[in-house]
């Protein structure tokens, strides 16, 4: 959800009003699986969100290239232990975690990508910032 995410971050996350959570969807087979594992491997070093942003920004490279290698190249741009990251990815240390999270969203009946859950209210599909704003503001006012 790269489109509206920066606006949500600047308007709500930065001030501490909204916590942003990412639940992986393995939607396009092995490539998706490897990209999610790469994000989780970066997350093990406290770099999930920077890696998340890099992966979204380089979607075309992920589509056309070797996802594992592209992920390693992207991770090399981050201030993390590259050897540890590569080992994590090669040994699929986060495979079980990613699979269990994808299984959970299937159990919840979430099939459309992307889907957003705002305190239990579902927003389906890519939506403009105003749609999120309309869902978030009443929740903040009631607190």
């Amino acid at each position: 959800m790269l489109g509206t995410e920066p606006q949500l971050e600047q308007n709500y996350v930065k001030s501490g009003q909204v916590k942003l959570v990412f639940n992986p969807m393995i939607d396009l087979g092995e490539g998706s699986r490897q990209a999610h594992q790469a994000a989780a491997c970066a997350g093990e070093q406290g770099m999930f969100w920077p890696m998340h942003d890099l992966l979204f920004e380089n979607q075309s490279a992920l589509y056309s290239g070797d996802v594992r290698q592209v992920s390693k190249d992207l991770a090399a741009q981050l201030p993390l232990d590259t050897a540890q990251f590569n080992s994590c990815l090669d040994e699929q240390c986060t495979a079980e975690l990613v699979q269990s999270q994808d299984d959970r969203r299937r159990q919840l009946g979430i099939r459309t990508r992307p889907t957003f859950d705002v305190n239990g209210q579902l927003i389906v599909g890519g939506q403009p910032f105003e749609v999120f704003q309309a869902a978030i503001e009443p929740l903040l006012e009631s607190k």
Partner: protein
Amino acid sequence: MRFWLWPWLSSILFIVAACGSTATEVSTVVSTPTPLANFTPTAPIAVEATTETASKGTPPPEAVDWLTVEGKTADNLFYLGNPDAPVTLIDYSDFL
């Protein structure tokens, strides 16, 4: 008798010399703030607030940039922001 006095006289001279250099340093330090006598503040200085905070031993409140905070939920999902935020937005998505 004179030979017996020499070591004492030498010690006294050494101490006076050493104190003299210290006295010079002190006078230098004391003379440094002189320009402050002509200093005219252009804005109020919150001396009392600082003193009060310091006496209570609590640091001044700082605004947190929650975009620098990430962690894991109880379900091991990665989150960004305030873990106690009133609103939680879960993004179900794929990188491809």
